[in-house]
């Protein structure tokens, strides 16, 4: 090769770099290690995390069983090691799967179109708000305080620099659902979007319809967020929503200390061209066979550059495929049954504790501890090898006496009993 290149050392390939930019020493990194040592290194890190705990954490990240088919499919090199499917003729596998993904998200949310994924739920929120701003030509968003706190923080980062004004409205201290009066009072004609989450951060099914009526009366769009996708198996899709944005982590995506997950944005057909992110469409090949390809790319950064609907390029294709396989495995009947199991487990747990709010909940519940703080409760639980709930005071100072617990189909009755015994 070097002969062909006319050089006698590969170093000659770098001879044209200015001397000032070259590093004059080896990188200060150890020599490479073997496969066995790599596996061992990460096994040790995993052990440092603590092993053998049962957990009742939710708050946007949920412990659901991952059907074995999911890893069987996504481990196939054809899916794992392929690029973004720009070359449709040799990417029909990925393209077809994304088309199915888009369809399933529409079926679950009741929307007309869904994109091929966003990074996660938290970034789907600012993308949805920016989209609403493009649709309405307005620059203000009203966001429920019961939307995931870290999602709201993410929105603030984007908003501050994109010239969006973000304000929040409160939840009812008894119900845990949004305060319609507060929303109504803060609503004005300059508002692009009202954002609510259901089930909300406290696990409660929120008043989406009423929020939608208030938003629409003032000419704003309603953005409906979700963090617990399994709830879609039991909750009625909301025709009031103009944009549905959410997180699919519950669909066979490992908690993995916070990512990678997959977000989605779904909407009405009339807003299709303002959507961010990749879209797959159906067409035909030159022989007339059904085929799929990436489409409406004139919205995207590689064509439209600074006038694109978003700067997103790489998305979460393989993670979205995990969710697609998950939805396929559970199917129409299974997703409902899974949701019903989650509902039953959380209600069993709640029955043994003191719920903080009166609103109807899915699989998460805010509970008030008596005589001790949530932190103290968690400390007592850890002694029994139980990771308790998220102390809510971290995000809501007024809820410093409460923690957020989650039960899923993986929560065993015996573990819930053990938790309740310590906390009650």
């Amino acid at each position, binding site marked *: 090769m070097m002969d062909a290149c006319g050089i006698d050392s590969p170093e000659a390939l770098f001879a044209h770099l200015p001397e000032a930019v070259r590093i004059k020493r080896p990188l200060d990194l150890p020599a490479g290690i073997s496969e066995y040592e790599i596996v061992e290194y990460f096994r040790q890190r995993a052990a*440092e995390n603590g092993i053998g705990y049962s957990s009742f954490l939710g708050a946007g990240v949920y412990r659901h069983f991952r059907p074995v088919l999911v890893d069987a499919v996504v481990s196939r090199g054809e899916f794992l090691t392929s690029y973004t499917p720009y070359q449709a003729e040799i990417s029909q596998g990925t393209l077809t799967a994304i088309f199915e993904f888009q369809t399933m998200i529409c079926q679950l949310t009741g929307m007309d179109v869904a994109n091929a994924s966003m990074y996660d739920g938290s970034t789907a929120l600012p993308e949805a708000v920016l989209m609403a701003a493009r649709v309405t030509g307005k620059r203000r968003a009203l966001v429920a305080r019961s939307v995931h706190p870290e999602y709201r923080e993410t929105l603030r*980062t984007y908003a501050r620099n994109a010239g969006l004004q973000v304000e929040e409205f409160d939840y009812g201290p008894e119900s845990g659902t949004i305060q319609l009066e507060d929303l109504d009072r803060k609503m004005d004609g300059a508002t692009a979007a009202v954002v609510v989450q259901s089930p909300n951060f406290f696990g409660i099914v929120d008043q989406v319809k009423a929020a939608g009526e208030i938003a629409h009366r003032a000419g704003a769009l309603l953005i409906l967020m979700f963090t617990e996708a399994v709830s879609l198996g039991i909750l*009625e899709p909301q025709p009031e929503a103009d944009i549905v944005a959410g997180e699919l982590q519950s669909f066979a995506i490992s908690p993995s200390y916070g990512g990678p997950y997959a977000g989605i944005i779904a909407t009405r057909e009339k807003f299709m061209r303002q959507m961010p992110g990749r879209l797959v469409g159906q067409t035909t090949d030159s022989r007339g066979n059904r085929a799929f390809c990436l489409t409406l790319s004139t919205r*995207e950064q590689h064509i439209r550059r600074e006038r694109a609907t978003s700067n997103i390029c790489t998305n979460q294709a393989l993670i979205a495929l995990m969710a697609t396989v998950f939805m396929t495995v559970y199917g*129409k009947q299974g997703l409902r049954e899974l949701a019903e199991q989650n509902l*039953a487990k959380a209600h069993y747990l709640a029955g043994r504790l003191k719920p903080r709010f009166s609103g109807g909940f899915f699989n998460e519940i805010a509970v008030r501890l008596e005589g001790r703080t949530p932190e103290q409760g968690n400390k007592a639980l850890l002694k029994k090898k139980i990771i308790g709930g998220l102390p809510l005071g971290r995000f809501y100072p007024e809820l410093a006496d409460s923690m957020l617990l989650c039960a899923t189909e993986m929560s065993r009755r015996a573990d819930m009993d053990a938790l309740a015994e310590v906390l009650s």
Partner: protein
Amino acid sequence: MITKVRTHPSQNEALLFERSSPGKKAYQLPDLDVPPVDAAAALGAENVRAAIDGFAEVSEVEAIRHFTRLSTWNYAIDHGMYPLGSCTMKYNPRVNEVVARTDGLAWAHPYQPEALAQGCMETMARLEAILAEITGMDAVTLQPSAGAQGELTGILLIRALLEKRGDPRKKILVPDSAHGTNPATAAIAGYAVENIPSNAAGLLDVSALDRIVTKDVAALMVTNPNTLGVFEENIVQAAEILHAKGAMLYMDGANMNALVGIARPGDFGVDALHLNLHKTFSTPHGGGGPGAGPVAVKTALEPFLPAPRLKRSGKKWAWDYNRKRSIGRVRAFYGNFGVLVRALAYILAHGGPGLRNATVDAVLNANYIRKRLEPYYDLPYSSPSMHEVVFSDARQEPGGVRTGDIAKRLIDYGFHPYTVSFPLIVHGALMIEPTETEGVPELDAFIDAMISIAKEVETDPQLVKEAPYSTRTSRVDEVTAARKPVLRWKPN
């Protein structure tokens, strides 16, 4: 002659919704060990849905066959060379997949107590330190989800520092050879974009830069090596010009595979850059993601990094949320941890010397392709190539054959196409990046295919224009797809 591949039958497969039949199931759930709950009573009847209309019902074997059949319609790195320029399609080591699925890591919840997350935090701290050493920068955030979000983070950091100095300024300069994400990012960060022309060598025009950098300019976003695969040799002077005028230098690190162990952005004046772990550091592209886009910065930008930050607290790691000057979060939690684990595994496997060797091999491979294809394809810029080489279709265009046609014909020869028609400054670009993954036999097979196609263009251009012939799907009608969008399946 086509020697690398021959056709074999691939299975037809309907969409899931078309092969669904009522009552089939692929799932099992344990028996419920608590009393069932009436959903309508618990949630309100108006909130409980009817059956999910159209959702598929298939058996387990139908499910696995469905996705396996689809998978066979894809090309992948595991099949062979994937010469997409600027995409760095290198081998994705399988040990990375194994370690990312280690139970205690894969099931770690982001809110579990810090005392029970030390392994995750140590993993991240180690990766931060290594990436700082590789880039020659002072601090690293692992929070950004992918390259484009890394860019946004970097520009917001620059904006925050300039705001603190009293003036965030108005414009970001972007060379005309840049990736589309650069101008899109600048716009989302609230900046106007000024596209600046490259000089005759395809490089930054430093003499023009001196004039263009006004008091309105916040930063220049530059890819180095640029999208022609050429090292910006005047980068140090460019940085000096920017810094002298109070502006900053942002580097798009998409092409870091040309520099690791050879040159460090921190040593040539870069203030902030992002890395694409799914390019340089081997994490799989997965058909379009997930990625991870860590951002490395100089000390002056460190106070503004997204919160939370890792900090040492005695013998333990802790998350520091009390970061008053932080730009805030760019996403929930701490980053795409699973991707970070894979990248660290790659780095540990290579070690310092191995990483440098990979760079050298990647650059050697690109130069070998350049030398051998130069007699057949037009080389619009003769500047030395780093990890990729860009040809144009100038010699094929008179015969009516364009870069996109050559790319499609390459499929018949058993290769994924190179990057087509990018960078935009080259008319009819063929952008080729082999990476270090390929050995001589695969490179030679690719080169032979490209030479053979160049000859076909001369003898039978129509053959090339209608390619591919060997795929189960022939040329796809993208125009109709965009004109009459069908974005979901519906029952007839």
